[in-house]
C-alpha cells in the first residue's frame, strides 16, 4: 500500500473530527527553519461541504480495539479498510504539503492500536521527527487518547500547539451506552491534567519573564517548548442521544469556566455505521448545530451567561431565530439602546451588531454623531438592528409595533427572501427548473416526521438498553436514573442533567 492509498483511507477516517483550527498561537519564523504560526490561523482550502481545510487532518492508524457505536472505525466494522502511517511517512507528507502552502500544519488523531500508550508513542515519534529533526515551526494539533499515561501526555503537550480530548457524548449515561470502552473518568482525567499543565507552564513562564531573581545560568540553554500554548479543545456529538440543548450548553459553559477550554466543538450526528441504538436517518441536524455554535459564540465573545441564553423551561434553542435575537425578544425592556452613548456591553446585546461592529461604533462615535447612514457605512446589519436602537434619540424602527410578536415576525423572516443558503434545500422536491440545476444530493430536512420518528425509536432503544445494562452491571444509580428518565419526553430531558459530565468542577 503506497502513501496515497494510506492517505485516502486515513483522511477519510478522520474527517468526522470537526475541529480544524490553526488559531491561538503566534510564533514567528526563524532563519533556517520551516514554518511559523499566526494567532488567527489560516484556512487553506474549502471542501465541497463548505468546511475549511487548514491542517492535514489524518489518523495515525484507523485500527481500533474500541467499539464505539457511532464511530466508523469501530472494531466490529469489518468493511472498513485499515491502514497505518509510519511516523516517517507522516512527517514527510506534512513537510511536503507545508512547503507547497497546502496546509498550516498537522492535525493528528488515531484509533487505538493495541493500547493507548502504544498508539501515543507512535504519534510522539512522528511529532519528534517533525519538530526535532525537521525543525518544523508550524501548527500541530494532537488528539490525546483517553487512558494514556500522564508522562506520555506531557511529552505530547510539549510537541503540540493544541491538545484535545474528545468528550464524544454530552452525558455519562450516553457515553456508557454508546462508547462502552470509555468512561467519564477516563476522559475527564486527561482533560484536567492538560488544563493543570497548561496553567503551570504559563505561570512558570511568566515568572521567568519577570527576571526578579538573577541566576547564573548557562548561556544559550535550550528553551523548553511551551506546553500546548494554544490551549485545549474538545468535541461532542449532537443528536445521537436525547440530551437537550440546555444540557449541552450548560456542559460547555462548565468546561469553559472549570477546565479553561479554548473551544468546544459540536458535531451533528451523521449515521456512518448502522446500530440499533442509533437514529437511522439521513436528516443531519445542521440547523441545531448552527444554533448551538451561535450560542457558544455568545458565551465566549458577547459576555452572555448561559442562564440568559437558555433555561430549563425551554430546553431547546429556538429554531427560527438565533439565540441573541431570542434573548432580545424576551428582554424588550432592555431596548432601545442609544448607539451614540451606550457602553460596548450594551451594544453587543443588540441583534445585528457584532463584536466588530460594536467596536467600530465606539471608535466612530468619538468624532461624529451616528445616524442610519453612518451605521450602514460601518457595516452594521441595520435591517435587524434598527428595531433595537435609537440614533441620537430617534428610534430606528418607526412605523413598526414594538411588541414581541411583531419583532419576532420580522427577525424570523427568511434571509434574502429565502434565496440564502444551500440551493439543494431551497428547491422543493419534484419541482423542475429550467436554469438552476441542483447538484446536491437530496437530504431529508431535519424537522421531517420521518427523521423525528427515527430518533424517537433510537432513543427509546437507548433507554431500554440503559435500564438493562445498568442493572446487569450493578450500576444501580444509573439504572434508576435512566428508568425515571424513561417517563419523560425528549423535550423535557432536564433531570438527566444532574448526572452527566456537568459536575466537572
Amino acid at each position, binding site marked *: 500500500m503506497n502513501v496515497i492509498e494510506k492517505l*485516502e483511507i486515513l483522511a477519510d477516517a478522520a474527517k468526522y473530527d470537526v475541529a480544524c483550527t490553526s488559531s491561538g498561537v503566534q510564533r514567528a519564523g526563524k532563519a533556517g527553519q*520551516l514554518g*511559523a504560526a499566526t494567532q488567527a490561523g489560516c*484556512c487553506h482550502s*474549502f471542501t465541497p461541504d*463548505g468546511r475549511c481545510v487548514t491542517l492535514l487532518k489524518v489518523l495515525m492508524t484507523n485500527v481500533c480495539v474500541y467499539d464505539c457505536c457511532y464511530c466508523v472505525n469501530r472494531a466490529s466494522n469489518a468493511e472498513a479498510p485499515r491502514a497505518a502511517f509510519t511516523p516517517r511517512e507522516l512527517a514527510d507528507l506534512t513537510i511536503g504539503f507545508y512547503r*507547497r502552502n497546502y496546509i498550516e500544519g498537522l492535525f493528528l488523531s488515531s484509533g487505538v492500536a493495541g493500547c493507548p500508550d502504544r498508539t501515543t508513542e507512535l504519534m510522539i515519534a512522528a511529532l519528534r521527527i517533525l519538530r526535532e529533526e525537521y525543525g518544523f515551526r508550524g501548527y500541530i494539533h494532537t488528539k490525546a487518547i483517553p487512558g494514556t499515561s500522564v508522562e506520555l501526555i506531557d511529552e505530547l503537550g510539549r510537541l503540540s500547539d493544541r491538545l484535545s480530548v474528545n468528550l464524544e457524548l454530552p452525558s455519562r449515561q450516553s457515553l456508557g451506552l454508546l462508547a462502552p470502552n470509555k468512561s467519564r473518568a477516563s476522559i475527564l482525567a486527561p482533560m484536567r491534567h492538560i488544563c493543570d499543565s497548561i496553567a503551570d507552564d504559563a505561570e512558570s513562564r511568566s515568572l521567568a519573564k519577570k527576571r526578579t531573581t538573577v541566576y547564573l545560568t548557562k548561556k544559550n540553554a535550550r528553551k523548553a517548548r511551551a506546553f500546548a500554548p494554544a490551549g485545549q479543545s474538545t468535541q461532542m456529538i449532537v443528536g445521537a442521544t436525547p440530551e437537550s440543548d440546555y444540557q449541552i450548553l450548560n456542559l460547555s459553559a462548565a468546561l469553559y469556566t472549570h477546565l479553561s477550554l479554548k473551544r468546544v466543538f459540536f458535531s451533528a450526528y451523521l449515521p456512518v455505521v448502522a446500530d440499533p441504538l442509533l437514529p437511522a436517518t439521513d436528516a*443531519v441536524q445542521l440547523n441545531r448545530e448552527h444554533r448551538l455554535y451561535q450560542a457558544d459564540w455568545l458565551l465566549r465573545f458577547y459576555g452572555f451567561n448561559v442562564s440568559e441564553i437558555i433555561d430549563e423551561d425551554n430546553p431547546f434553542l429556538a429554531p427560527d431565530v438565533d439565540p441573541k435575537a431570542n434573548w432580545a425578544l424576551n428582554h424588550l425592556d432592555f431596548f432601545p439602546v442609544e448607539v451614540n452613548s451606550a457602553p460596548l456591553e450594551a451594544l453587543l446585546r443588540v441583534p445585528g451588531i457584532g463584536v466588530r461592529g460594536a467596536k467600530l461604533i465606539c471608535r466612530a462615535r468619538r468624532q461624529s454623531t*451616528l445616524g442610519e447612514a453612518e451605521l450602514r457605512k460601518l457595516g452594521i446589519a441595520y435591517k435587524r438592528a434598527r428595531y433595537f436602537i435609537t440614533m441620537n434619540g430617534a428610534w430606528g424602527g418607526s412605523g413598526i409595533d414594538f411588541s414581541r410578536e411583531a419583532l419576532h415576525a420580522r427577525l424570523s423572516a427568511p434571509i434574502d427572501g429565502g434565496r440564502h443558503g*444551500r440551493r439543494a434545500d431551497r428547491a422543493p422536491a419534484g419541482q423542475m427548473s429550467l436554469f438552476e440545476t441542483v447538484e446536491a444530493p437530496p437530504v431529508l430536512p431535519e424537522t421531517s416526521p420521518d427523521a423525528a420518528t427515527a430518533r424517537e425509536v433510537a432513543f427509546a432503544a437507548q433507554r431500554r438498553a440503559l435500564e438493562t445494562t445498568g442493572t446487569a452491571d450493578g450500576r444501580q444509580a444509573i439504572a434508576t436514573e435512566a428508568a425515571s428518565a424513561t417517563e419523560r419526553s425528549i423535550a423535557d430531558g432536564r433531570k438527566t442533567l444532574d448526572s452527566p459530565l456537568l459536575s466537572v468542577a
Partner: protein
Amino acid sequence: MEHIPNASAEDAPATPSPPPDIYDEVAYAYDGSLEGLLSAVFAAYERHEHPTDIAPEERLQLRLGQRVSLIPTDQDRALRVMGTLRRQCGRAAALAVTRAACSDEPGAGTAVYRFVRYAIDEQKHRACEHCRKRASCAGRGGMGPCPKQRGRAFSDITHPAVERLFRISRSVGQECEHMRQFVRFQHLAGEGADVWFARVNPKASVVPLIMDHFVERLGVQPFIIYDEVHHLAGVYDGGDWQLVNTEGAGDLERALPDRTADEALMSEAWRTFYKSVSIDARYHPELRRQFMPKRFWKNLTELQESPAALRPRYAERG
C-alpha cells in the same frame, strides 16, 4: 481664430473670463507605484493645487476640460510624505495608505490624496490651551504632531474621506488574506535551478504585501510568486526578496525548469486528501464558493481534474 478674442476685447468687454478655480481642473498621473502616488501627494502641496483625480498613468480617464500633469516619482519626497503621515496620523493610517496604493480600483489614488489632505488638516484644528499635558508635549504650539490626535483622523470612519480609504484598504487586506490562503507552490528543478513557483491571479497588486509572510514561513526554499494579472513577480532567492516587473517579458515562463517527480506525487496526494475529507451528507457548494471564490480555482491544485492542468502554460503554447 486668433483675431476673435482681440476683436471682442475691443468692441465690448462682455464675455468675462471664467473663474479659474472652477474650470482649471487638473489630474495627476503617476507611475502606479506607492512612491509615485506619494510623490503626487507631495506635488499637490508643493504647487498649492487641488487635483480632482490622481491615478496611474495607464488608468487615468480625463474629464472634460481637465489638464493632466505627469508627476515624476521621487523616493525622498515619498518617504517624507509617508513619515509625516505616520507621525501625525499613526501607523494604522500609514498601513491603510500603503494597501490602498496596491488597489486596482479607479478611485484609489484620489482616495489616498483626499485622506491625506483631510488628516493633516485635522491636525491643525486642535486646542492646546486646555490640554493637561501641554507643558511636556513635544508638539506644543503647533510645532509638531499632537499625540492625542494621532489616531483620530483615521478612526472617524464615517467621514467620506476616511470611509473611502478604509473600504479600499479593507478590500486589499482581504485580497492579501486570500493570497495567504490560496497560493500553491510547485517544486520545479532542472539544470542546476531549483525553485518553488506559484502563479496567482489577485484582484489587487498584493504581491509586495504578502512576500514577507511567505519569506517568514518558507525561508528555507527559494520561491517565486508570479502575479499573472499585474505581470509582477516576487522573487525570493534565499536571502532577500525583490519585485520583478515582467511586462512584455513573455519568455519568463519558458525559462522555468520542469516539475520534479516528488511534485507529481505530492499534488496527487493533496488532491486525494481533498476529495476524501469532504462529507457528502453536508454537501454545500454555495458555502464553499463564498469562502473560496471561483476566480481562484484555476490556480488551485486540489480543484484540477488532472495534475497536467497545472503545468506551466508555455507547454501548450508550444
